[in-house]
């Protein structure tokens, strides 16, 4: 169920200014990561992993684009790996974990682009993407904290 929520969020964020404020390829809000973060903190890494896998696979299927799978997967898995590691360290809050996840996500996607194109060219986009990821990571963390707060009140 969480996977479908992640999918829905990916779809919805497409309606916001598609490429953020900057015409950067691959820049997006990353709202689907809210689900990943939630799963990571409440269900644990293994569950978060399955959700990411399902979300990426189905997302690529719905987009009708098989190559999108590589991008989605590398980005999502790198993000999850980074976030799991950061969370384990216990000195980072949700914000640190989320920014790390966003940065890792971008690195994964640039890596996928480099593999697909067989060129170092996509690396040129990474610096700006990384700077953007600080903000999108913080935003995801902020929304997640609202979510957690609301859920805590509801229980």
């Amino acid at each position, binding site marked *: 169920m969480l996977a479908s929520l992640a999918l829905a969020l990916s779809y919805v964020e497409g309606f916001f200014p598609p490429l953020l404020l900057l015409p950067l390829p691959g820049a997006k809000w990353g709202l689907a990561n809210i689900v990943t973060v939630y799963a990571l903190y409440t269900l644990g890494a293994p569950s978060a992993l399955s959700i990411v896998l399902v979300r990426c696979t189905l997302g690529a299927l719905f987009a009708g684009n098989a190559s999108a799978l590589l991008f989605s997967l590398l980005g999502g898995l790198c993000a999850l790996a980074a976030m799991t590691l950061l969370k384990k360290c216990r000195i980072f*809050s949700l914000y640190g974990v989320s920014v790390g996840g966003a940065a890792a996500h971008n690195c994964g996607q640039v890596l996928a682009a480099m593999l697909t194109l067989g060129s170092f060219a996509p690396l040129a986009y990474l610096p700006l993407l990384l700077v953007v*990821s600080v903000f999108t990571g913080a935003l995801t963390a902020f929304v997640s904290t609202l979510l957690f707060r609301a859920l805590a009140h509801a229980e």
Partner: protein
Amino acid sequence: MKSYPDNRLRPADALVVLVVLAMAAAIALWQFSARTQSDALTVVVEIDAAEVDRFPIESLETHTYTNNGVTLMLAPYVGGASTVSSQESELTRGVCVAESDCPTLDCVRTGVITRAGQSIVCLPGRIVVTLEGAQQDFDAIAG
């Protein structure tokens, strides 16, 4: 009963931000230092990771490439001064994607590239246009 993380920023978070920004700066610096501005630039076009075209930047023709359902038009750019009366050395030459029917149009948005090492990437079409400078790198100089 699930335990939710507390939502306050911690000092260590600054560390994550710093590392990410440092990575961005490092990559940007590496990219920047690898570029040289040279008049003898060559435009190299790769499709599906294989080189398909190569021509000097002085070429004033537009080139059209189609791949993976995407067609894009590469156009020359000449700028810097009035092209009628200027010396060749004052002109800035570059290329840009004038038109494309790819879904995201990042290639068009990239604008003009004028320096060696810069590139325009069309991901849906798997087309990469790179500027190559004159060979100036030496691995070792003997004697």
